[in-house]
């Protein structure tokens, strides 16, 4: 599919004496959805910071061809980071306003996007009036509004209830496919990783190292995350990854 979007080669990151991740090498092809799983504290979020350029590695190289090419990166964190004083449509418009789009145009565009994210009718609501799932939907809409070529997601659904999580996973996948970009998601949930991604990077604990990198066929087959969990081979894949993490 051409040049890879992100390449890490021998990356080691330390904070003072503490080595967060050691000798990490992997490639993310453009247009793929990669999940990173591993035990707590293995440095998954650190990797996202490295890829986004927020931190620099002590050794090794990072190549982010998306940001090198001047294209946008979109972020979704566990916290929705909605602004209390803005309504839903105003919050979703924030991405465009941040880029310099005039307020009126940004809000008009945001208003148009809301139905696609299940937010129709909630334009004038404030974040404090919404459930966690709705807020993450709005955060998602805000993230996608800037047309990012690369999506970096740090446990975006881990604070949500199971049903909402499944729904949002499906919506994320659908939007992602439509956008044609690349995505890297950090998650605790192995089920989620296997259901949604094209590939799963398995890390082991402190300091974080790459245990394995698996290609995963389920999402590519176009199955919804709920159905995927029923598919043949799904449980096997999940168990395999679980054992690799535990090892």
């Amino acid at each position, binding site marked *: 599919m051409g040049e890879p979007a992100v390449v890490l080669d021998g990356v080691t990151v330390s904070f003072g004496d503490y080595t967060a991740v050691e000798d990490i090498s992997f490639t993310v092809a453009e247009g793929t959805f990669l999940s990173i799983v591993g035990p707590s504290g293995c440095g998954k979020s650190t990797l996202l910071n490295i890829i*986004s350029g*927020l931190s620099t590695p002590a050794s090794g190289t990072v190549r982010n061809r998306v940001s090198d090419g001047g294209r*946008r*990166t979109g*972020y979704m*964190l566990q*916290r929705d*980071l909605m*602004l*209390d*004083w803005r309504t839903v449509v105003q919050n979703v418009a*924030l*991405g465009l*306003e*941040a*880029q*310099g789009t005039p307020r009126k145009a940004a809000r008009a565009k945001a208003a148009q996007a809301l139905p696609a994210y299940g937010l129709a009718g909630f334009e004038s*609501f*404030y*974040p*404090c*009036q*919404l*459930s966690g799932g709705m807020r993450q939907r709005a955060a998602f809409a805000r993230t996608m509004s*800037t047309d990012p070529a690369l999506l970096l997601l740090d446990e975006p659904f881990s604070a949500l209830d199971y049903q909402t999580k499944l729904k949002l996973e499906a919506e994320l996948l659908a939007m992602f496919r439509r956008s044609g970009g690349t995505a890297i998601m950090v998650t605790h949930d192995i089920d989620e990783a296997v259901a949604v991604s094209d590939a799963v990077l398995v890390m082991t604990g402190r300091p974080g190292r790459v245990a394995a990198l698996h290609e995963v066929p389920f999402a590519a087959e176009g199955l919804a995350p709920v159905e995927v969990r029923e598919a043949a081979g799904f449980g096997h894949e999940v168990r395999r990854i679980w054992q690799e993490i535990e090892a």
Partner: protein
Amino acid sequence: MTTEPDQLPLPAAQEPPALAKPPKTRRRDAAGRRHRSLALAITLDVVLLVVLLGSWQFAVDSGSVSGLLYGSPGQIWHTIVGGVESGTMFSDAGATALEALLGFVIGNLIGATIGVALWYSRLVEQMLRPAIAFLGATPVAALAPMIIVWVGTGMISKIVVSAASVVVTALVLAFQGARGTDPLQIRLLRSMGAPTRRVFRLLVLPSSLVNICGGLRLTAGLALVGAIIGEFISSSSGLGHAILIAGSLYDISTVLANLLVVGLLALVLLGAIGRVERVILRWRFLALSE
């Protein structure tokens, strides 16, 4: 999504006498309980007030309490009526109100502007920190004589004293609001391509204003106190002036009468601010989800 009822429910319209009145049902819900408890509180307040004023007046009339030293409700009423008839009550109240209002607005504007500007420069903030702490700790009553000397004895000086009472608090509130901006939110905006000035306009500035609004009740009170202190030091009109003169003449009833008006002024001001708050900080008054 219902809004929290923050006022008493309006009384039902009167039925025309020809139709039968529906039976009065006693509301059992939370709103009904609140209504009844508020009604009880008001009733008790009125009763207590009547008892207090009654016994005070009685004590003065019977001679056991000196009317000269402690005033009496009758005298206070007399003074108020006299002040209203002669118009001095209105001119005094008006003067103090104007000084406090302008001091409030100016003090908040200046304080807020400096406060958010300090966000921009860490260096300037650290340079100014001792000065701000110093000014904040200095009681306005100590600054007022100096201000009067510099600015003169006209209304402007009272406005300045009033603003001076407000400015440091407004500054600190604005600065805290700016600095308290969630760093993740700042990072998010930057990642979306916003340069610092846009981060400031979209995120930091609103965040500070929200904080300032939260402090408006406090600064309103400070502004009023500042205006009155300014009048104490030097003035020819205003409620503080009236209190000072009456106090020096041992006319306690007049002092109390004017104090009453000051209190009423404060209530009006706070009521207005409450309305402003409901508009600017409207999301705080909405029912939360789940």
